[in-house]
């Protein structure tokens, strides 16, 4: 039997908008799928089909309405990300699960080097090692040394996104969630980011990723999950990538 890292079962996300008289909006419903260890699962679908909501439920930025998301860490007990304690999620976010959001909230007045270093320190890396690895990752993502002490809140959209990516990629999570990581990047930095993601994949990190460019998706994904109006239409094996 193949090793599984994530098992999503009957997952639904509905928003109950109390300010609009209790209007209910369904982001997605009845989603069931598995992610194998080391697999890259791409998610595709039109705008509004529920892609980001699905990833946010896994990261617990959204609370799932129904269903379960069972995470099987390499060492340790399986845990339902939809229902476990907030404190357990914080711990997993620090040590095991990385996330690149579509829109990055840059904490004001924290330097770019510090942001990336901090994620490693949270993972238990010592300060010197964390700083060294953070610098390396930033340089690889073409953030020049002169920007290390500057605040990402003042960066260009592309630079800021690369800091966002750096803090997610640097910590070598077991599970990486990507929400259009390359959307605001120019061609050069896009190629570099994709290259770094590919390296992680080769190291056996499991990924669920949304890419707004179908070409990119097909380059990486082992399988592709297609969402249509909140329902999984199909999950197919990506032949282009083998």
């Amino acid at each position, binding site marked *: 039997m193949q090793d599984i890292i994530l098992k999503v079962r009957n997952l639904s996300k509905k928003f109950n908008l*109390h300010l609009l008289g209790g209007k209910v909006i369904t982001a997605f419903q009845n989603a069931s799928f598995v992610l194998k260890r080391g697999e890259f699962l791409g998610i595709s679908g039109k705008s509004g089909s529920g892609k980001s909501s699905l990833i946010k439920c896994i990261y617990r*930025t*959204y*609370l799932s309405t129904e269903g379960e998301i069972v995470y099987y860490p390499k060492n340790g007990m399986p845990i339902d990300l939809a229902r476990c304690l*907030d*404190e*357990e*999620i914080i711990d997993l976010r620090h040590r095991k699960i990385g996330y690149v959001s579509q829109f990055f909230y840059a904490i004001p007045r924290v330097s770019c080097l510090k942001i990336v270093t*901090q994620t490693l320190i949270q993972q238990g890396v010592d300060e010197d090692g964390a700083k060294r690895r953070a610098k390396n990752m930033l340089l690889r993502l073409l953030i020049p040394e002169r920007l290390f002490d500057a605040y990402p809140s003042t960066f260009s959209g592309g630079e800021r996104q690369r800091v966002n990516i750096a803090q997610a990629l640097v910590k070598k999570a077991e599970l990486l969630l990507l929400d259009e990581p390359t959307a605001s990047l120019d061609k050069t930095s896009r190629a570099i980011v994709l290259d770094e993601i590919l390296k992680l994949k080769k190291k056996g990190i499991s990924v669920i990723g949304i890419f707004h460019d179908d070409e990119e998706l097909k380059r990486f994904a082992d399988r592709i999950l297609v969402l249509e109006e909140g329902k999984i239409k199909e999950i197919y094996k990506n032949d282009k990538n083998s």
Partner: protein
Amino acid sequence: MRDWILKVENLTKIYGDGCPNCLKSETNKCPFCRATIAVNSVSLALYSGEILGIMGESGSGKSTLVRSLYFDISPTLGEAYLNGEERNIFNFNSQEKRKLRNFNMGMVYQSPYRGLNFEITAGGNVAEKLLMANWRSYSNIRRRLIDLFEKTELPLNRMDDFPATLSGGMQQRIQIAKALANNPEILFLDEPTSGLDLSVQARLLDLIKKIQQELKISIILVSHDLGVIRLLADRVLVMREGRIIESGLTDQILEDPQHPYTQLLVNSML
């Protein structure tokens, strides 16, 4: 996973005589006996090294909750435990409570008039907390004061000035220095930056963040300002009418609030 450091169970504070129906009251005014249920059956856990935010509108019971935990107010009902100590800390005798307050806890109040003694100097205010923790040697106290002033980015040459002559931001820093004096494990911050200019506020928030990261102290932070909560808190509790109506990860509360009241709060502030 991080260990819990403080656990609170069913904490209730009733102002007035109270009656058997108080706890069932929907609002914080009991319809039967007119008592105020400032805090109603609140349970929470604070984990080691985290910043737990408490938000909610004016009068929702945030201050009463943290002041009860700091023994400023004695609760009507409820229990609180520190990890490794089996007794409910509300049942401690007054000497034990004083000891907890002086050695294990620190508090920063919204108003410096509550947190500082305006009759004595800035340095004297901080030294007072050291004296309460049995510091005796003058030179050690002096050294510790310099250390604390530096840590909280206070100019050393203002040490002998009276609080009234200092800026609002500095007064809050003195409260922080005082709160940190005995290396507490738990820090309570009750609206530490409200009423200050934005730039002063920003520097103070940065200081709090820096201190938290350096000292790995556990913090309960009361604020009605979502910006402050978002910047500092790992988790948030939302209070209304004395009760906790919702709790979650900070990003989840901000992006996917469940309770109608929290939705209103988040929507009106973003």
